[in-house]
């Protein structure tokens, strides 16, 4: 059963490109006023008015002491470019005059946008405050992303009130720790025998994933799994004279990138990993077993030793040798 191609990639691409260019040009010409840093909606915080950060700091000195060292403070205080940025505290929390009326009363939480669960501001409103400045760019695909669909607030990951992390105003000291607060399964996988150097502080989840949304699966930062992997493993990019079909198709066919009990992040130990696809007569279909180990009692097989199949088929990601059809050179 075959499905016909419902559209030609080139044709749709051309149309989409033209559409995008036309829309962009029209937007630039017709709407020169940017939305970045636009003032929050009228009526925010029950119609309150802005009071200025000095008023806020008068009561919130400890917060200000921490906030002073953040990226937001630099933007708001050193070189603000918009009216909203000049409002500093109220750029995020909204106008504060109503809050001043009865600041300690929980019933008065509607007088200010808060970013904690205790405060109770709806997540949509919280996020809209952030997105009033942070739309587009890396967050272009936030709407409808898995994190948005699962009702995450920006402040589920970020805490701009203090400098917990070197970058990103995260709620934890590192990107990985921030992600692990929900993705505990991945944390456990990174504790396995073979893993990427995340626990060693050399890469982060955000090297591969964009938590703010992506058009690719699993919030990947590239158009495909392989394009993502090639960012660090450029030597695997090829193309090779002799290509290995699943290697070209998807690195995940063989590897579990978050961690594995097996060498080289493999899904299954070799030779069984290879035998999941290779079923031709001969050594590909042999049942390799414990008896063939050194000291196993039976005749030793090189296919259960060391790197197993790759003892011979060492160029398994592709070969450029004219005799490399079986990836041996």
């Amino acid at each position: 059963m075959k499905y016909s191609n419902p559209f030609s990639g080139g044709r749709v691409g051309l149309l989409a490109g033209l559409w995008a260019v036309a829309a962009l040009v029209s937007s630039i010409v017709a709407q020169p006023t940017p939305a970045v840093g636009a003032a929050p909606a009228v009526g925010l915080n029950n119609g309150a008015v802005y009071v200025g950060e000095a008023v806020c700091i008068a009561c919130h000195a400890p917060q200000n002491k921490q906030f002073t060292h953040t990226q937001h403070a630099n933007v708001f205080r050193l070189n603000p470019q918009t009216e909203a940025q000049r409002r500093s505290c109220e750029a995020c929390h909204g106008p504060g005059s109503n809050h001043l009326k009865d600041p300690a009363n929980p019933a008065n939480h509607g007088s200010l946008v808060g970013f904690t669960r205790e405060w109770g501001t709806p997540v949509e409103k919280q996020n809209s405050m952030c997105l009033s400045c942070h739309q587009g760019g890396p967050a272009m695909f936030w709407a409808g992303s898995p994190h948005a669909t699962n009702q995450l607030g920006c402040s589920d990951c970020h805490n701009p009130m203090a400098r917990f992390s070197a970058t990103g105003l995260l709620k934890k000291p590192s990107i990985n720790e921030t992600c692990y607060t929900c993705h505990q399964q991945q944390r456990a996988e990174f504790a396995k025998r073979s893993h990427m150097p995340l626990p060693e502080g050399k890469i982060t989840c955000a090297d591969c994933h964009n938590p703010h949304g992506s058009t690719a699966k699993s919030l990947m930062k590239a158009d495909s799994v392989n394009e993502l992997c090639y960012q660090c493993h450029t030597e695997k990019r090829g193309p090779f004279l002799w290509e290995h079909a699943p290697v070209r198709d998807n690195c995940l066919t063989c590897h579990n990138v978050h961690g594995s009990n097996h060498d080289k992040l493999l899904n299954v130990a070799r030779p069984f990993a290879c035998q999941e696809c290779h079923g031709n007569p001969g050594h590909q279909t042999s049942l390799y077993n414990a008896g063939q180990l050194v000291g196993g009692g039976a005749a030793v097989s090189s296919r259960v030793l060391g790197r197993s199949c790759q003892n011979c088929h060492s160029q398994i990601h592709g070969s450029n040798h004219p005799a490399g059809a079986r990836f041996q050179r």
Partner: protein
Amino acid sequence: MAGQPGDRLNMKSNVRTSLCAFAFCLGAVLAPTGLGAPLADSAVGVGTVLGNALNPAPDRTRPLDTEWAVAKHTPSGQLFRLPFAAPDSRQTAGGWEFSGQLEFGYIGGDADEQNARYQMYQDIDHGAYLNNFNLQLRRPKGGYTIELMGGGAGRHDQYYGLQFGRANSWKVKLFFSEIPHVFTDRYRTLWSGVGTGNLILLPGLTPGGAASNATNNAEVAATAAQERMTLGLTRKKSGVRVDLDLTRSWKGYLSYSLEKRKGARPFGVVWGNSGGTAPMEIPEPIDYDTEDLLAGVLHVGGLNAFNLRLSASRFVNKIDTLTLQEPYRIAPPGGVTTVPAAGAFTQGRIDLTPSNDAYNIRAEYTRSMPEFFRGYFTAVVSAGSWRQDDNLIPYTTIPNLTLANVTLLPGGGWDTLGALSRRSTHAAIDTRLVDLTLSLNPTSALNVKGKARFYETDNKTDPFLVVNPNAVYLDADSGTPGNQSRGLTLDGVTGVWGRLINDGSGQNILMGSNSNPAGNLPVKSTPYSGKQQDFGATADYRLNKVSSLNAAVGREINHREHRERDQTWEDKFKLGYANRGLGDSTVRVSYEFDRRRGDAYLTSSYNEYFSSALVPMPITPGANVTSWAVRTNSGFRAIDLADRDQQVINARINTMLRPNLDAGISGQLRKSDFPDSADGRTGQKQRSANVDLNYQPSPRQTIYGYYSYQFGRTSQASIVGGGNLSIGQVTALGVVTPANAADIATAPGGPIFPLASAWTANSTDRNHVMGVGLKQEIGRASLNLDYSYSTGRTRIGYTYTVGGALSANNAAFAGSRFPDMATDFNYLDASLRYPLAERLSARLVYRFQRETIRDWHYQNLDGSPVVLAGGGANAAPTAVMLDGGPHSYQVNWYGIMFQLKL
């Protein structure tokens, strides 16, 4: 990072280079220009962090801010971490405010452990340490900022970053980071020149070996016993990124990075006949440079957002080939003669991974449509190309090879480029992406989206023809008197087809006898291409202020050229529920069902790339048709092409047990069935359960704990295949004819794949991970404790019929499973910090780390690298395993660090 014999770890030989890098950084700061902060952002590129194993995040040993209000919770109900005490800022006469810290000290104990598992991604050693430093400066007048950070100075996991600029206007980031990757510390080399493209046998070993295998084995064993060395590499990456706010609505960035990888890693080479003789582990040299150039503009204005990104990447392997001498007497394969007749195979040559280029342009556009169901539209268009045009090398470096029934024409020697059908790879793969999404909100509570995606990898490479165009067959056609010279023609090229494998020590060449033209040989490379189309719709319905229900349906269609299946399609259904207001809890659950199917699965899909395309299948009674008819058994399915039914359940609960105690519980169930796979992967199950607790009773104390359990089982099956098939052969499935030969040859239960030879295997992983930690302020002291323990077990069991897949003799040793693979890891990190003066603190550090590891792949390999299959001391080895494999270690190290506030 390839240690020479006698070196414990020659990473240290690069310390001078590292220190130079550090000096450059410091000099750069004074300039002020230099290396700085991470390169990537959350959407583009890699390089999002600077740190190392001792500094996985900015100094977490700082005391907490005791003035901070009681900790609150995130919207999902997780405790916000209490902030560290704010740094003390000072001011220069020039109006710069600055703060920072320098941590230095000394580490002793077992810190110098050289076990590869310990050193895998870190470089911890005895001695003085500049562990980390950071400096933040800002000048309110003008809004200028400078940030500098670094750590691990002089080590192979060092890092430095510098960022400077004007807030909200422009910034420049520069960085340098080094990542070690140690593969083994138990490699026993037979060669000098490790890390280079020429491996010369050490004294005592003879290229081409001696006539006696026993002598060769003894010499190899003796040489291997001399030294152990470390094989590993380091990645040194530096880069610069400039971000500019061009206007209030336009931003631009430009980045460049250069990564150098250098060292060696365990690799394999094999010799002889059909390619299975004396495989041996060799050190592959690594000397790579990768340059990445990235530029983009971002626009947000009115209802539109637009990103445009251009990237170019250049990978250069500075060692194109690896030539190595080999120490065994490899006999010429059948039909091959050498000069001299014995001992001619003295060396081999591997064509290492080739240099390549990659380019990509990507445009992303979003338009909000507030007047049209409060919708938005996104379009992403991307096009790229991967290119490689490495010069090809001859089949062998061994001169004067001749083949029976083959006559070489002038210039057609197998050790010359004249034996190739072309001189360079000339390979290219183009990629294209179009991704369109339309999102609408018909009501205030309902959001619906439609999505269409097309992604293609188009392999433009002309198939490489494995033919010597300057050679002809010396025909021994019994039907024609006398000898005739001729070639076979495919795709317009005439010559002698097949490959001279493993430097001529094996051959896979059609030998040109019409009486036996068999040979299932690769004669043409396969340019794999693929197209993927995704169509889907999602709906997100808001039940109330705190809960929502979401559903998604979609179909993914994959078209793969030259594979067993032309198309597969996978239908996906997903249902999710999120509730942020279930008492003090947030609950998120989802269920997903995916069903993958495809068109006809053809085991013969590669026929056009084999020699069966050159010579028609013989039809005469008694003719051996194995090469034309026998492929994978027809019940076998490759993983990525098989029919699959997959179910996934995810659940995640965050709850506030007390105002200062939160819990996070999550779990996943995943089950995959492969209903059409009698053989291949037949099933997969995964389960995981996780629990986290965070307790923050006061600004002076925080405690955490977590536990995770994971289970995974992969099931597979196969049938041991073998034997020949001939026209007219009587089988249980009928008499073999040209018409039914392929069906009979590939049938489970047929003569090639007898059911008695069927076997199954289960690979079962079980993992437990737990951790606890404490941060406690004790008077003026700060105590940090982190402990984690993880354990992993993998059991591979199998079933078979005695006398079928395994003989009774072998079954007696095989039993029903391999020994369990096991890894246990203990880690304790303790730190006690005490202020000595206003700007100086001392920190006592202690690390306990123990890992035990057992992997049957390396069972008993550390003792004797020359592995004999049982043929006696005078047999060629079944393998020469020079890597002793991973092994256990335990370290206790301690040190004192001084923290100086700047």
